[in-house]
């Protein structure tokens, strides 16, 4: 599909914003355009408020905000923003399903395994291969992954239950490799039911990680575990009362070796952490010396690029292995995160909706820089353990609201189109969906973006599609201040 898209900034305001409390719209099949009846639409936060589309695909929900879940059996479920005062146009794609068995070299079912379907997705700082669908392997060795968009996928088998999984097999890709291999990608069409994609595990012994956790008399023991920082999740350990541990069959990769005395770390618990690069040889005689976890206050400042007041903002520290901390910014942009325990943290910011008495305008803050100890930590995060240094300096970009409209070759509005803004410089991808009138809006930082309109409303922008169509889509230049509406015209097919 050649879809050379023409983009022009135009001169007239296109989108009017109503102030009603009703969300309504129509759901159709992406490919046939036929209205879909019996589609369930529900907000994430309220369990009882559900709309079901009628025979013409129409639905109406009263008094909702936030995101809506849209689901119908046989189609890929999507999440859409509940925009009020406009007719939403939602397109659902028939789901592809892949199924088969996973067996080991003895012909045994791979109990405790999970099969994942992966695609490249755009994240801050580049593309990353991420699971977009998964299914557990049952006692017969069968797996089944539903809810997939059309496209090419890598398949991988991971250990999802250390108790059941045969540790002689490390997590691996379909085809038997430790790395993704394009030769063994599976191409699925929309609505396809692909059966008998059988996976035969290849025995990889991996390497052994062994050592000792120093224990002090009278204190509760700290147990070691290996936590994956990248592709592979983690490994349980077998440990002895004397503190020695052995972790066998570890995939090469980047890990953190953690020993701690509690499940979720609290002040006073014992903790030791050691970054570990696992290669092709065993790592033995590692010694972890736990210390008492200290809860520290982390102070910081919030500034806006080019000056200005960020307004009431929530600052969140998200721990890599679960949990986190948050704080409200003061009027001058300063904040203190209280009682932060050791961990590896990423930073996110959001409107302070608890301090807000009225709903916010639609443009949320976007961090462009996070500096911890004067090192940039926006994409990689940072470690806290022991007395906090800091401060944490967060810079917010000024999001710019872009309004636009998408039409087809004959000038008719395109409803429900997914519009993706992929920054040319490393930054987060943004997306928008056109309404029944073809109108859309997006909040972007100043800069250059390639504006894609993929054929399918896939949440994960498929890297194949991007590579194949790099020159088919226009680059738009978003400047600080006001931008004229963005007109997108799809050429005739």
């Amino acid at each position, binding site marked *: 599909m050649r879809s050379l898209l023409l983009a022009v900034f135009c001169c007239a305001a296109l989108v009017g914003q109503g102030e009603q409390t009703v969300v309504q719209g129509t759901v159709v099949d992406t490919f046939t355009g036929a209205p879909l009846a*019996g589609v*369930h*639409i*529900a907000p994430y936060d309220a*369990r*009882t408020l*559900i709309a079901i589309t009628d025979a013409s695909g129409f639905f109406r929900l009263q008094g909702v905000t936030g995101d809506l*879940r*849209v*689901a119908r*059996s*046989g189609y890929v479920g999507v999440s859409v923003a509940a925009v009020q005062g406009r007719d939403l146009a939602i397109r659902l794609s028939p*789901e592809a*399903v892949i199924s088969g068995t996973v067996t080991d070299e*003895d*012909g*045994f*079912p791979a*109990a*405790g395994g999970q099969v994942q379907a992966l695609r490249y997705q755009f994240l801050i700082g580049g593309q990353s291969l991420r699971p977009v669908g998964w*299914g557990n392997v*049952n*006692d*017969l*060795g*069968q797996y*089944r992954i*539903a*809810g997939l968009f059309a496209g090419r996928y890598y398949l991988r088998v991971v250990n999802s*239950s250390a*108790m*059941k999984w045969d540790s*002689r097999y490390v997590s691996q890709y379909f085809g038997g490799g430790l790395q993704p291999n394009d030769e063994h990608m599976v191409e699925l069409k929309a609505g396809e039911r692909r059966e008998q994609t059988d996976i035969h595990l290849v025995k990889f012994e991996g390497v052994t990680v062994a050592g000792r956790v120093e224990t002090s008399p*009278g204190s509760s023991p700290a147990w070691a575990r290996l936590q994956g920082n990248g592709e592979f999740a983690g490994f349980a350990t*077998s440990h*002895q009362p004397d503190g*020695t541990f*052995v972790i*066998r069959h570890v995939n090469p990769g980047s890990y953190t070796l953690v020993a701690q005395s509690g499940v*979720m770390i609290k002040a006073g618990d014992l903790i030791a952490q050691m970054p570990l690069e696992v290669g092709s040889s065993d790592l033995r005689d590692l010694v972890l010396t736990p210390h008492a976890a200290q809860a520290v206050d982390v102070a910081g400042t919030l500034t806006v690029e080019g000056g200005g007041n960020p307004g*009431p903002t*929530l600052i*969140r520290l998200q721990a890599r292995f679960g*949990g*986190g*901390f*948050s*704080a*409200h910014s003061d009027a001058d942009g300063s904040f203190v995160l*209280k*009682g932060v325990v050791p961990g590896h943290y990423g930073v996110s910011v959001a409107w302070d909706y*608890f*301090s*807000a*008495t009225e709903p916010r305008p639609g443009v949320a803050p976007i961090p462009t820089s996070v500096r911890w100890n004067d090192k940039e930590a926006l994409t990689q995060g940072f470690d806290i353990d022991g007395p906090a240094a800091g401060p944490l300096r967060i810079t917010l970009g000024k999001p710019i609201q872009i309004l636009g409209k998408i039409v087809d070759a004959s000038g008719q509005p395109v409803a429900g189109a997914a519009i993706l803004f992929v920054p040319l410089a490393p930054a987060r991808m943004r997306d928008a969906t056109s309404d029944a009138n073809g109108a859309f809006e997006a909040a972007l930082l100043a800069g250059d973006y390639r504006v894609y309109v993929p054929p399918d409303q896939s949440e994960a922008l498929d890297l194949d599609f991007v590579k194949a169509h790099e020159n088919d889509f226009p680059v738009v230049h978003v400047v600080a201040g006001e931008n004229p509406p963005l007109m997108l015209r799809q050429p005739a097919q």
Partner: protein
Amino acid sequence: MLASLDAQTSGPVNTVLEGDIVNAATSAPVTLARARLDQGQNDPLYAKADSQGHFAFENLAPGNYSLTVEGPGFFQTCTQVTIGVQALPTGRGKVSTNTGAVLASKSLDVAFSQSTGADGTAHVVAKVPVLPYAAITGKVTDPRGLPMMNCTVVVFIGRPVEPGHIRKWPPPVTNGTFDIVRYASAQTDERGEYRIGPLEPGTYWVVADRDGLGWPGWESVDRATWFPAATSRDAARPLELAAGQLARADIGIVRRTGVSVAGRLTMPPGAADSTSSAPEGATHLYTSLALQPPRNASMNPNGPFTSTRKDEFEFSDVVPGKYTLWALTRDASTDLYPANQKPLYGFVREIEVGERDVTGLDVALQPLRDLPGAVTFADGCSPVPLTIRAVNHGPIAAVQVTAATGPDGRFVLSGLTSGQFGIYVSWPPSAAPRTGVASIHLGSRDVLKEGLDMPYSGDENLQIAMQCAAGGGSP
């Protein structure tokens, strides 16, 4: 005898452990199976059995081993083997699931024999039975017959009630004959189908309920439904499964409208002062409420939930019955993460919901307080430092708080939320063999048997009495 002595003096004995794997139900050889031999922290040894179920490990060093035998469709059988002594190993094999959980009521005889080969090789020969497991499959559909995907299907097993067994809190759910214990769960796929196994022989109940997230096709009038189409476990049909049996349990989700349960929240006096500084008009307090059916009720143990930032609340589509209404108010301004938020007020009350809407329920929240306590040791026991744990068993905030006893045996549990708590006591390993809890009381309430409902309006302290075995004392 002489040959054996020669072997011992002329170097290490080459010992072979071999065996045959048979189906415990039919005694037929198992055609796809393997054996694993574990010894301490050494890498385990594996031997795949041939198509007659025969396996062998050669050149074994003397020592104690754990032999585990498994095959697709069977539970594992695990037994201990000692290599290198003249006495024959004998034994019972423990039957366990592939997670290593031992089936309490099942063990199998593993027969051993021993022989010496012409070359002096010692052979230990085992006949190891494996128990075929049962499984349940089925399909979950809505009232129109359409598949219900992403439902959680749970199977419960009936365990015979042991007479005279001391029941500590939380007590098991029981129907008088059986304790009904959660055994395994699965999710329905996009066709509404599920499969749950391995299951041991026994009596099972199957229930389909909504998933925590995911499928929005589950509506508030859709009820957790027991096989084949019952909204209570008492009306459900249990399945009797024999070893190796595959049963089918299709479930049609039952729809039933309920009534509305609504009311108002009253904060304690001075509530506004206890929140952190906030802009004018901002609401930082939020209250979570749960309607919990009686513990032994045969429906979903976690009834409806709601939460509100206002002073009004409503549960919709509540089925008539008896409930405990719990409420917990937290200050969201302190932290976005509920685990870090300060619990402020709580409420608990029994209510009965009939066939009509309930309006104007008054929920008067009261401040949550710290719970102080004291430990006493029986005469003749030397006091040891203890750790006191309070674990919230729901229905709102699953928290756990701990406190250490001081030199005077006193402690303070702080950060308790609203809900049902169990109190657990632990002591240093060195004191373990001789120490035990005699009783835990809060006022007249026997906390060991009845648990603890918070908030507690009395002003008593927690009283923990410890005992020690005869001749006990300081370790």
